[in-house]
């Protein structure tokens, strides 16, 4: 697609786990160590929506007391784009007709849906993939129960949420489950494996990639 990907190897974590658990200054130190890693005026593509939301909406708040760091964080925030958003709205993803018919359920991370608009974008992305039919599951916008440290501190409630989510996804009869958020996928796939269910959630990037490969094979 004519895009060169740079991966600054010193990057670590967006800091969301510490931030939401009530340790903002730990998150701040981790964020501060990465403020200089993206100096060029290039978009910063985040393949996990809630991490993107952290960069875009919360990093600037962490540096309220330091104008220089805040300016850096603001610049990063402005350039932060969620992966699917970039692929759909900047690269203009469009595949030729002819992919194998597949029913797909989409799960969006709660924070990414609210902070990065990933529900509409995710649906748009799937709409650009010929042969892919989106199936809507019951209580689609409800949380999958991950919530970072919540899943460990309140495992009973978290598990109940995950199992309700998976049951409603299973009821759609979907062939695939996609999400643009790694945290939710960790939770859903761990739960699916424990239930000995064969379904696995895929990252939307992987899914798009496999559709691309299939469509080039088809046309070749």
């Amino acid at each position, binding site marked *: 697609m004519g895009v060169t990907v740079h991966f600054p190897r010193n990057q670590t974590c967006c800091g969301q786990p510490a931030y*939401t658990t009530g340790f903002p*200054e730990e998150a701040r130190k981790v964020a501060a160590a990465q403020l200089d890693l993206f100096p060029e005026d290039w978009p910063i593509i985040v393949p996990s929506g809630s991490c993107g939301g952290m960069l875009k909406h919360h990093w600037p708040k962490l540096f309220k007391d330091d104008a220089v760091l805040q300016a850096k964080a603001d610049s990063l925030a402005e350039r932060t784009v969620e992966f699917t958003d970039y692929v759909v709205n900047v690269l203009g993803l469009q595949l030729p007709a002819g992919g194998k018919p597949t029913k797909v359920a989409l799960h969006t991370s709660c924070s990414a849906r609210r902070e990065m608009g990933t529900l509409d974008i995710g649906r748009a992305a799937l709409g650009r993939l010929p042969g892919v039919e989106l199936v809507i599951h019951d209580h689609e916008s409800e949380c999958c129960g991950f919530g970072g440290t919540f899943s460990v501190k309140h495992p009973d409630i978290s598990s109940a*949420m995950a199992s309700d989510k998976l049951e409603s996804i299973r009821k759609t009869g979907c062939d695939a489950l996609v999400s643009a958020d790694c945290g939710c996928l960790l939770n859903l796939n761990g739960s699916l494996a424990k239930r000995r269910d064969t379904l696995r959630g895929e990252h939307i990037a992987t899914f798009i990639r496999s559709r691309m490969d299939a469509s080039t094979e088809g046309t070749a």
Partner: protein
Amino acid sequence: MNAPVVIERPGPATPKTAGAPGGAHREVHARPEDFKQRSHESVNDPHLRSSFRGAMDFLIERRAVHFSDLVAFETLRKLGEQVRQHALSKLPELLDQLEAKLTELGVHVHWAETPEDANRIFLDIAQRHEAKLMVKGKSMVSEEIELNHVMADHGIECLETDMGEYILQLDGDRPSHIIMPAIHKTKQDVAEIFHEHIAGAPLTDDVNELIGIGRKALREKFGAAKIGVSGVNFMVAETGSIVLVENEGNGRLCTSVPDVHIAITGLEKVIDKLEHVVPLYALLPKSATGQAVTTYLNVITGPRREGERDGPREMHLVLLDNGRTQAYREERFRATLQCIRCGACMNHCPVYTRVGGLSYGTTYPGPIGSIISPHLVGLKSTRDLPTASSLCGACGEVCPVKIPIPEMLMKLREAGRHSITQSMTPPTQALVGQGEVRAISEAMAWRGWRVLYSHAFLYRLFAWFAPRLRWLTPAWQGGWTKSRTPLKPAPKSLRDMMADRDKRRR
């Protein structure tokens, strides 16, 4: 505000199973410390799970009908937020103004710092009037001070007249929702409770008949009570009016039939002007019960005047603090007091829906309960409430006065952690229990995390080792592995893949 109690839910009524919540009389103690235990029991109770889910879905749908235009909703709730923020910004002034206005109207104003103070005020008034019976409309603040129990200890019957609360009182149970207190009861439960406690009540599960039975039993009491008690939805500083939103008409009876009317509420409920009621009322019933308007909207301005034929001859207002000024003093928690107690945050909360209201062990359950209870009863006993959220944000999205509930939860988590590290936003006024309720090991772990993740060299070393040592990952990982397979580093990290790619390109 109250609401039709026994909501006819779509679908067949759930049959009562042995050990089901509700039904049999149980002594229910409110202990937020037991949240984990009780929530464990609740999520494993299929009856409760399905009945709460059904009821909440029903309420969600009813609300959504009114707010299908999201832009209009946003405009309206922005207005609601402003009305409440404006009032809080001049709270001390407005309270002064309210007191002066009420006094002028002949209303006695009482200030209660603690629940004990409030109960003493009630007791004094009751003893002065030699009252043995009070009839009470729905009031969560009266639950907060446990008015019924304290009065009973002194030989005074305080009778609930809101149908939902009445059912609970008969059964010795507690409210599980602030608007629909008896939402955890099925109509079969209600039938049995009435049959057992009301003389001559036949066993029926016809909802209308049940309500008829309850109403008749209550009607007889209004005339006999010397004192009527009510809650308050809004207090208007400008006019000294008390606004009461209700559906059953019992609120109107409690505030007009008995000779003495005592209203009780939290001191944050004041608003500046009468016209400010308009946006709040436009938001409240729609958010709460999915009604465009309620059956009654009572605006009470002073006791009976010369020449008037009804209304109480004596009127009191009890303003309860109970931790509210503490929340007020601290800027970062002040938004908590914007609440108009609509309950929408509970209805939309995936955690509340699964554990039910009684698990919280607090007067106010659900998201609003998790952010207000630490101020009312301290962070120590409520420490598991702010963490019992995936921060999905559903509550903040529906709150009619735009309280950033997830943000408040995060700030309470921050306040609750062990204070080995300096807090970024040092509190001006410490919360009771601040800095001591969570383990030191947790704070240490986050510090370790920070060191690893803020030093690229260390992190890269870690990231190199992790996939190579993945066979070492333990099979048991605390709460995580309860219903999930263990977390393992990927066989090959993204970092390694990117390094390979760079090598290939070179």
